[in-house]
């Protein structure tokens, strides 16, 4: 399983803080994002705007391949500081 977490306006628009998702070997973060948005409805928000990705608490490119039991985060551009 993959743990997926969402933050800030993305979390609010998806009305979802975190979900579990079936692991498929060789899947990238980009694939995962497509699978999620293919669910339609709120999930289309993942395609609409800039979405950044972190894998296991490390900023990662969307092309990065995910391993089983990884924690994948999707979030909008950060605005701290």
């Amino acid at each position, binding site marked *: 399983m993959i743990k997926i977490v969402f*933050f800030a306006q993305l979390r609010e628009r998806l009305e979802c803080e975190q979900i579990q998702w079936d692991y498929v070997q060789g899947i990238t973060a980009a694939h995962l994002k497509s699978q999620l948005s293919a669910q339609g409805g709120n999930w289309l928000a993942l395609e609409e705007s800039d979405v950044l990705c972190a894998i296991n*608490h490390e900023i990662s490119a969307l092309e990065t391949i995910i391993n089983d039991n990884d924690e994948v*985060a999707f*979030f909008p551009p*950060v*605005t*701290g500081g």
Partner: protein
Amino acid sequence: MISVQQQDFDCGHEYQQLREQGQGAIVTFVGLVRDFNQEGQIKGLHLEHYPQMTERALEQIVEQARQRWPLGKVRVIHRVGDLDGGDQIVFVGVASEHRDAAFSAAQFIMDYLKTQAPIWKKERSDIGEQWVASKSSDNDAVKKW
């Protein structure tokens, strides 16, 4: 040392800690919430973050700075949660033997923090809440390093 915390910080105290090691130059940066009194209904900010990731991201930024410049003590504090106008948000303090290294490293840490630390600001006002939009100038600031 990195802290991500709700409580406020004391810039004078943090400065004294940085001073202990006897380096010749200390640069501090503090970012504050704007004073909303002049700007209508905004009442304050809420800062959300990614708890397991924020400290680690900040540590990596400091580590990158250490690889570029000879640094003594480095201190980063970022507040999260609810803040009011005029409140302190972020502290970056850098001690070095060289003033250019201290200035550059403090600015580098702030520029990277602004684009890589998983923290998001939302403005609270009488008419609701609004996520702060990211600034392209912040992305540009990182490119200079």
